[in-house]
């Protein structure tokens, strides 16, 4: 365990100008299994790795539908995620009721970021221990955002969060320029390839441990999707056709690049 004189109170800065409790909260996000998000001109997709505690246990839910047009993938404390996703659902409902308008995705993300920021500044509170990737579509097209417990939110072409997410990020950084014009099938394939990078040795993506979330028009492997392309989560058998599109990893001489150091258990400096 790391300890520090300035980490018992999240509202007090360390002499280095850091808020240690906030940084620990960001560590909590890195403990959660990985989630990957990508965006094209027409679609936004999420891919997440579900964990189970053992052979007898079910897999932990990683994706939540917020509204017709918005969904999230989480990494970190699921209980905190449920609190925040309930809040997001209320915001979405309120926008629908008061203005008869689906809430703009950026505003929804801003409201939870503002909520998280308050927890980093008020005495006697703790930051949320969860990070989100938020996808959605509105009048300005499809979007992908990252939300983190520090109260920051950013929009991305592609992003990953959670354990070993640096490996996925490295993959995304290499390929992101092709995402803009990619088909939905290609986008998901890139997402699966990125997610695969976060797996431990000898593990692989299966229909049981992989969740796919998306907004935008239906893919060739989907049925009964309304033309508006609402947010939907694919799990179980329907994931198989997408897993089948993956290009097998070169298991030969070229060993996969090791996950960048500082990804899992980071020793806090200072």
């Amino acid at each position: 365990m790391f300890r520090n004189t300035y980490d018992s109170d999240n509202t007090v800065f360390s002499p280095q100008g850091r808020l240690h409790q906030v940084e620990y909260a960001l560590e909590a996000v890195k403990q959660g299994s990985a989630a990957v998000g990508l965006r094209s001109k027409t679609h936004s997709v999420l891919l997440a790795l579900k964990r189970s505690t053992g052979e007898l246990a079910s897999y932990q839910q990683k994706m939540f539908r917020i509204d017709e047009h918005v969904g999230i993938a989480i990494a970190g404390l699921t209980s905190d995620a449920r609190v925040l996703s309930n809040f997001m659902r209320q915001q979405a409902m309120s926008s629908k009721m008061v203005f008869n308008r689906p809430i703009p995705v950026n505003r929804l993300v801003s409201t939870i970021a503002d909520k998280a920021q308050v927890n980093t500044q008020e005495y006697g509170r703790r930051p949320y221990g969860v990070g989100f990737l938020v996808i959605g579509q509105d009048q300005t097209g499809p979007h992908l955002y990252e939300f983190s417990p520090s109260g920051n939110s950013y929009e991305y072409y592609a992003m990953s969060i959670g354990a070993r997410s640096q490996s996925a990020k490295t993959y995304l950084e290499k390929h992101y320029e092709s995402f803009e014009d990619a088909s939905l099938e290609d986008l998901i394939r890139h997402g699966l390839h990125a997610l695969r990078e976060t797996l431990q040795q000898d593990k692989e993506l299966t229909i049981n441990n992989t969740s796919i979330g998306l907004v935008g028009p239906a893919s060739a492997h989907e049925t009964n999707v309304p033309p508006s392309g609402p947010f939907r989560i694919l799990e179980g058998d329907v994931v198989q056709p997408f897993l089948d599109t993956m290009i097998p990893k070169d298991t030969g001489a070229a060993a996969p690049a090791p996950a960048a150091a500082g990804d899992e258990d980071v020793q806090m400096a200072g």
Partner: protein
Amino acid sequence: MPMERILSPNDPITAPKMPSLPASSTHITGTSVLAIKFKDGIMMAADNLASYGSLARFKDMQRLQAVGEHTVIGAGGDMSDFQYIQAMLDELIIDEFTAQDGHSLGPAEIHEYLAQVMYARRSKMNPLWNAILVGGVKDGKRIWKINLVLPPRRFLSFVDLLGTTYSASTLATGYGAHIAQPLLRTAVEGKEDILTAEDALKILEQSMKVLYYRDARSIDKYQVATITARGISISESRRLETSWSFAEGIRGYGAQTQ
């Protein structure tokens, strides 16, 4: 000028004792608002009179108000409640503008918001005593649907003090709902996509004239708002050309000679 305290539902002192509002306590009132759809958008008209009972008290009242870039509202009924609504919507539009995120409230959103406010107030037994027309045009295109650019959408809808709403290609509030609405329907229905701005103006002008002849709370000075995809314009006040020579021989009009 010293003001007399008047029993009002909006007065914090008298309001708690007055759960329901007698119609007679609305003081400064506006009469009809008319609105129609035409080829390029919505046209709306309202006269410039704010009455104090049967007294023509203010003859320079503007009852048409732009709300944001895509919407105009027109109100009849209590003019102080209308001014309150204007202030509320101005604040709403400023909040939306300052977000600077590419989203803006269109006529449909403003109408829904107004309906919710009107219904909430009536549920507190303290309604905003108005009938309001909301008209506008907002680009309906969605970028995320590839190769599909929807044409600009016209929007025209009604909301009143009870939160009641309805839409049609012609709408009128107050006395106009009785006198002008049938005329507007005859002139507009089925021709919404054909009528030019010029045609629409003529139709409204004619209806305003009939209303001026028939409605004792009206005046011959009015404004016209035009909302198209290109934006909003609200005209300067204009006069109705009326003729009263027919009244010469009618007993009951003008000075009686016998």
